[in-house]
């Protein structure tokens, strides 16, 4: 296949056979209980230097409790899949957890600007959908996927993509490298203790991220009985054998929303944006993360049940979200 043009940036090594071997050796086929605390899950399954993907974001059914735990445990040198992100990349960069970012979209600001200018963080350029297609390729066990977008952009030049002559149509086509992250963290509405997980509503790439990643941590608003999963299997978004850890995390997407469960905490959303814009992530972390052993303690001491109840009451729409 003739290569017509190629990007010049580093990209995570493409190794579908290595991923298959990992799946063979590490993914549990038996129904094994995987419930554990956020602290244990992040300690066991997020390692310094990992390629790290989260689904949705800190404001929209994202794994916010798990992200705070990653920051609390001061994970280092992560290579972050920065797609469909408002503040997540900024928080992780500001907390010193990140060395590389694949950019689809993140909310910019002084924190990221400085880190990139100082050379502490390297950014590689993609788009949101190119990133979810890279995950799709990884989730299919393939080395790459052809895409009809991305060609001709300057992002292409700063990516791992290649433009080739399609051997079937003889037309130019862009190929993007498959992505098999080391670890995925995903927040869902319901899961059972084995990791059978239900996402209600729209999402970004929860299925692709779960299937493509070597280690998968699910946090769930509710832990449901496996009989409930079996009652309506069509609602299972992610099957148990992709999952390594299940964390019961009520309000696990706070300060974001979790569709059907609670609305966003607007004041804290604004405060989080401001922390990134002012390069004040340290203060933010010192307020919401480090003083507490876990999110349960933070909610108890800092937020209070009344406020959480109000956020729950604000989410009046249930159609499509409740079984």
């Amino acid at each position, binding site marked *: 296949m003739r290569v017509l043009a190629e990007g010049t940036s580093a990209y995570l090594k493409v190794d579908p056979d290595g991923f298959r071997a990992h799946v063979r050796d590490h993914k549990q086929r038996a129904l094994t209980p995987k419930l554990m605390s956020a602290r244990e899950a992040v300690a066991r399954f997020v390692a310094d230097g990992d390629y790290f993907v989260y689904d949705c974001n800190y404001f929209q059914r994202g794994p916010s409790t798990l992200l705070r735990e990653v920051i609390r445990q001061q994970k280092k040198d992560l290579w972050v899949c920065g797609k469909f992100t408002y503040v997540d990349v900024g928080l992780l960069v500001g907390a010193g957890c990140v060395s590389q970012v694949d950019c689809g979209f993140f909310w910019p600001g002084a924190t990221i600007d400085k880190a990139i200018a100082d050379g502490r963080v390297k950014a590689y350029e993609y788009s*949101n959908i190119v990133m979810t297609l890279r995950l*799709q390729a990884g989730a299919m066990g393939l080395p790459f996927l052809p895409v009809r977008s991305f060609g001709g*952009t300057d992002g292409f030049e*700063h990516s791992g993509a290649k433009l080739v002559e399609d051997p079937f149509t003889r037309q130019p086509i862009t190929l993007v490298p498959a992505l098999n992250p080391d670890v995925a963290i995903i927040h869902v509405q319901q899961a059972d203790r084995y990791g059978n997980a239900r996402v209600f509503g729209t*999402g970004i*790439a929860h299925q692709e991220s779960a299937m493509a990643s070597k280690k998968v941590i699910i946090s769930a608003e509710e832990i449901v009985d496996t009989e409930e999963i079996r009652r309506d299997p069509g609602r299972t978004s992610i099957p148990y054998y992709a999952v390594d850890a299940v964390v019961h995390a009520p309000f696990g997407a706070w300060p974001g*929303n979790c569709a059907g469960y609670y609305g966003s905490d607007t004041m804290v959303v604004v405060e989080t944006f401001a922390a990134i814009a002012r390069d004040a992530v340290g203060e933010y972390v010192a307020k919401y993360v480090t003083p507490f052993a876990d999110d349960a303690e933070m909610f108890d001491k800092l937020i209070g049940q009344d406020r959480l109840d109000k956020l729950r009451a604000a989410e009046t729409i249930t159609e499509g979200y409740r079984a």
Partner: protein
Amino acid sequence: MSIDLGLKQAAGTRAGSFNEREMQICTVARLVEDGKTYWVAGGGGPMYAVLLAIKLYAPNAQYITEDGVIAPEPMLPFEPVMTMVSSRAGYRALAWGTMNTAGNHAQLGLMDYGLLNTLQVDQHGNINSTAIGTYGERSRRFGGPGGADSIAALCWRTVLMTDQEKRKFVERVDFISSPGFLDGSQGARERAGLPPDTGPYRVVTPWAMYDYTPDRKLRLVARSPWVTVDQILEQCEYPPVVAGEVGLLDGPTEEELHILRTELDPRGQNTAERSAWVVFDGETYTRTEG
């Protein structure tokens, strides 16, 4: 208006006072074609424009968003920034998917129009949302293309919303985050692997509307009544082609503004942002810098 710009006639009383952001949204709303599909960038002007159009001019226009919401009847207004992956934004949709749903449906050719806000746009309709300055050297970092690259690559026609400012309306963007006609040469998009017969269709600013000539050059085709062609050209780093007859855009109607201000954006999150105000006394529009 003697030249056909494809704009819906906005009936009703002309509003006496409005800002230029509202004008831009109303212009785009009148451009929305009934019975067509729109892939709308999350939040802001594009989403207000398509929602306004569905309420007033194009009841059977449908839209999708990047999180795979197909043809919703959203519960308005949205909470701040919660224009995707939220129960209000996805309310009463016909289908829910994911980001690859949106991308794949556009790649199949199902999306007639893409509707985008842009930070910086050039004469060929290329969009920069990555970095201002020399990338990797002296540049200020922005957020990246998000979904805009796929919208601009895959929808049949792309409508861009941007400000009429020299630094945003440039000869060549500092970084092509999302593709327009690339270098402007014939077949440039196809040579880059993009689907044929796609690309920028209109650019709408608070002051003007542009289309593209058959040889893919930006062309000024209409202006807001309170600015002259010369004033517009002063705010273009690169002079566009000027149509033989530059049409006059109608100001917003009371009805359009009422919907915008009471149903779509009652908190004034987007439509009340800093922009000049315009007063209409029934005969003359007068602009006041905000």
